[in-house]
């Protein structure tokens, strides 16, 4: 029986493990001085990358659930969402502490003049609200509105990808790849919306006469 329970829990354990693994690898590279010529930037970028990746994984849960018919994936969605928030928080902490050593005047000037950071802040503030309202208590408190509030993950993802695009100088291949996947998520939401509105049938070709 116990063995069976372990087996059931394996995907959940794997999911937890996958959330921690990138952080462990980053710390490993940091400790062994393996972050290249600009370790502060490498640290900063890698944490940001993983925040974005986990945000995308979070967004993928609902479509996967709908298409596959699996149930009970809400826990996974919460896990990956909180994980994305965690990496975003570390990304922010590295910016403030590791890169700027809390030099507030310099940080303020940097934020005011760097428009790409505004999108990062917008994304982070949404993730913060979502993370705070994520536990059962938050669900109870928000009641019916919880779903509406948590739909803000979509604007957050758009701000996140703009934040990525907007600080690059050359190669745009990677953010374009993320954008393409995001577009698929949006397409999925739009299709569901159409279906729910019963308008979906308008899109199905009528009559074969």
């Amino acid at each position: 029986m116990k063995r069976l329970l372990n087996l059931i829990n394996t995907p959940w354990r794997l999911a937890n493990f996958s959330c921690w693994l990138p952080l462990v690898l980053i710390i490993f590279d940091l400790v062994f001085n393996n972050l290249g010529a600009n370790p502060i930037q490498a640290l900063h970028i890698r944490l940001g990358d993983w925040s974005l990746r986990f945000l995308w994984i979070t967004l993928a849960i609902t479509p996967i659930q709908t298409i596959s018919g699996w149930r009970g994936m809400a826990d996974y969605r919460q896990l990956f969402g909180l994980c994305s928030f965690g990496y975003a928080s570390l990304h922010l902490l590295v910016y403030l502490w590791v890169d700027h050593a809390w030099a507030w005047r310099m940080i303020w000037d940097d934020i005011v003049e760097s428009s790409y950071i505004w999108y990062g802040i917008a994304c982070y503030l949404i993730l913060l609200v979502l993370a705070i309202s994520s536990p059962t208590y938050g669900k109870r408190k928000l009641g019916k509105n919880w779903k509406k509030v948590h739909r803000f993950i979509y604007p957050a993802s758009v701000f996140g990808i703009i934040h990525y695009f907007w600080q690059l100088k050359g190669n745009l291949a990677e953010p374009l790849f993320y954008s393409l996947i995001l577009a698929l998520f949006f397409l999925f939401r739009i299709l569901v919306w159409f279906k729910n509105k019963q308008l979906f049938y308008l899109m199905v070709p009528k009559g074969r006469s």
Partner: protein
Amino acid sequence: MLIKTQASLLECEITDPELFKQRRQIIKGLLAAGLIGKGIARAEANPNHLPGYKLAANNPVLTPTPSDIVKNYTNYYEFTFNKEDSTRLAQALPTDPWQVEISGEVENPIKLQLEDVLKQQSLQEYIYRFRCVEAWSMVVPWIGFPLAELLKLAKPLSSARFVQFTTVLNPKAMPNQLHSTMIDWPYREGLRIDEATHPLTILAVGMYGDSLPKQNGAPLRLVVPWKYGFKSIKAIVKIELVKKPPITSWNQYAPNEYGFYANVNPNVPHPRWSQASERLLGSSLFTSRRNTELFNGYGDQVASLYSDMDLRHFF
């Protein structure tokens, strides 16, 4: 190429074959020879220059960044968009033999073999701060000579008001020149004639007492210390003196983001990010960035070039 050059230069003085194998030793010897030849023993203002070198005048006191960092953090879009992979990929570029052409508005258009250039010029060490438009900086002890000295050989006409530089076009070795859409290859850069002939503007052939690594722009690159790094074009094959402002690669790609002048200026932000501060590479974690200086700290020597210009407009 440099090995050959140094060898031919040193043949008259040093014949120990062991030395020919040691590039570092040879270039040191070369510099020492230049020093002896000129008979100049000048008091060195900068305590950080490498021993045995003649340090060029007007170098502020700067501590060089560890060379491992400088050699493994380069933007070389002809090879890759990644700053670390360029170290390996750039090794594919053949740099020996190397020819430089000086043409355009000159009395005496010339094509020079790099080794002949090196024979004619006296090499010095220039410890400059190198500030990238991406808001990081490093301090590099370049070895080179003033661009003005090379231009003299071609005898520029009074109609020459700008200088255009062109990087080698070699799509076999530089994969992004084949299929990259970003920049209209080959890479081009330009300076106003007074900027080009300023004593701080150099052509570099070495760094850290050694020949220039390929990823750092071997065998011949421009270094303009008061401008953002992208102005300091690598692997130069052509230098043209022209009447009108030349097309420059980054300016052509995004004219609202990268100006022709590209002077380091903390008060003029890039449209998408601040230029007020920079990460000095090699500094440790949890240390603050440094405040970027106007003209990268070389204002007392170059500000007069722009005295009647609005630096926000001519960014």
